[in-house]
């Protein structure tokens, strides 16, 4: 990997994209095999992988709009990473197609004969029906397509000349974008994940999914920056001050995730109403009990203790390990939401899970890398880039 120090574009993008593409194709082949071996398992594994990579992109989209709205300076130098990451979101619409075909396996409300014998599902049928489900999914992807497109295009236009108006324009797009984001993410989480157990509901569920996505996006930024620097790219532009800021945000949103997760659990535990507690009960039976405990300690308690100090956030080796760990935890969190609907007692990872993660992830990372390496890897036209390089974090 090589970078031109004047234009900040990658003259040699390295082999990362190729490796990701190859792994993606192998993974997708594995997915196809998985579909024929065990279609039920395949669709659940696939939905987990799809949710993981989509929420990662959504986390990046949120971070980017937050960056524009607050006029943050420190993050300008790393802005191309969330920009490239969220510009992959529209492609996720293609990855959504298998979920439409797997609706019968994933969502029991899509069976008319089950709905006919279920009073509660009949009441929800005006919202939870196959046609409206698909219309909503199309709407989400249309919103994400336009947001990511406009934000990316204007940022690239800025590269050719220092036009101060574009900074303003990006901010003006981000304000309504944030509102659209909140609605689409909430309803996407309700539709794709919560409705798997259609009797159960939690109003905070969308926030829960969003929080996990943002944590994993921030962790992904840290990993990307560290890997770039290991390849001698952006060595002087990104300093431990930027790492410290990224670490602080990762830490803060990890706590936010835990706060939301606990709020969700707490109200259900307190009220103790069977139709609500059943969801947690399913996740505390058989092997799932250990998954639940691993999430509590691995996603909150342990990272909280490890990352609380200033030194830890400036220690790149530690931050890298923790970032990978948090990504794994986000995957486990989604797995823990989705898989108990299929496997009620056994919490065992299957090769289909790995194939799905590789398949969707490989293509996702390939597209990400293609976007990232096709333009200057820092927004060279932003007038505040110099200030961003010299950021000081305390």
């Amino acid at each position, binding site marked *: 990997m090589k970078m031109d120090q004047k234009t900040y574009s990658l003259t040699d993008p390295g082999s990362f994209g190729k490796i990701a593409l190859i792994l993606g194709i192998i993974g997708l082949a594995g997915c196809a095999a998985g579909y024929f071996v065990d279609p039920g398992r395949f669709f659940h594994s696939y939905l987990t992988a799809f949710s993981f990579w989509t929420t990662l992109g959504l986390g990046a989209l949120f971070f980017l709009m937050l960056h524009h709205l607050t006029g943050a300076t420190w993050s300008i130098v790393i802005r191309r990473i969330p920009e490239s990451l969220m510009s992959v979101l529209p492609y996720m619409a293609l990855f959504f197609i298998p979920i439409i075909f797997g609706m019968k396996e994933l969502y029991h409300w899509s069976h008319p004969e089950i709905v006919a014998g279920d009073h509660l599902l009949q009441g929800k049928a005006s919202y939870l029906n196959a046609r409206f489900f698909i219309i909503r999914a199309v709407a989400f992807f249309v919103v994400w397509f336009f947001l990511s497109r406009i934000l990316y295009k204007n940022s690239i236009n800025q590269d050719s000349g220092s036009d101060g108006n574009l900074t303003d324009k990006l901010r003006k797009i981000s304000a309504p974008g944030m509102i659209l984001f909140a609605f689409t993410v909430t309803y996407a989480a309700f539709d794709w994940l919560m409705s798997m157990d259609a009797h159960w509901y939690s109003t905070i569920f969308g926030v829960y999914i969003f929080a996990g996505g943002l944590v994993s996006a921030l962790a992904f930024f840290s990993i990307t920056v560290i890997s770039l620097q290991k390849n001698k790219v952006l060595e002087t532009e990104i300093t431990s001050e930027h790492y410290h800021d990224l670490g602080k945000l990762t830490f803060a949103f990890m706590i936010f995730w835990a706060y939301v997760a*606990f709020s969700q659990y707490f109200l259900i535990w307190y009220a103790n109403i069977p139709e609500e507690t059943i969801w947690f009960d399913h996740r505390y039976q058989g092997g799932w009990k250990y998954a639940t405990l691993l999430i509590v300690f691995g996603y909150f308690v342990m990272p909280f203790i490890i990352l609380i100090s200033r030194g830890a956030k400036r220690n790149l080796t530690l931050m890298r390990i923790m970032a990978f760990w948090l990504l794994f935890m986000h995957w486990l969190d989604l797995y823990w939401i989705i898989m108990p609907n299929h496997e009620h007692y056994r919490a065992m990872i299957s090769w289909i899970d790995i194939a799905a993660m590789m398949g969707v992830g490989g293509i996702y990372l390939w597209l990400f890398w293609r976007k990232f390496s096709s333009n200057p890897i820092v927004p060279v036209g932003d007038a505040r880039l110099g200030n961003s390089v010299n950021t000081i974090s305390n």
Partner: protein
Amino acid sequence: MNVQNKMKVVIAEFDSTAELMRAAEKIREAGYTKFDCHSPFPIHGMDSAMGLKRSGLGYIVGFFAFTGLTAAIILQWWASVVAYPLVISGKPFFSYQAYLPVTFSLAVLFAAAAAIFGMLVLNKLPRLNHPVFSSELFKKATDDGFLVTIESDDPKFDESEVKKYLLSLGAKRIEVAG
């Protein structure tokens, strides 16, 4: 405080941030400990030039947050298990889930209080007055002055020596307050 040991402060003005930084380094190397720098805006790198260590406030806050956390759990355990064991909606006496909001709040309360009072104690506040406030030169610290102050309770303090030393460092104006 009586007249004999009333504190004196030597104030010296420098031309630029770079000179102030160099002066701070020299003063630290010369072995002075009770000195301070004043400028209208923060200067990056000044902490290390002056030889200031990172504040220990974080550890004080951490300690008190943990104390608040422990106190909250013990308080709630004592109230609902030992003193008034009541069955509430069929839940166990020691329902740690229900304790968490109070535990969190008390930890935050202790941490916030420790941060404020710890900051005051570490800054030796509150104090009613300081000799520098009688100085005309010191007012420039909030305007355009880059100032160094050396206080008379420094073990190395000797008024004429200090003045001479500061002049040799390039101070353009010197005033003694107190």
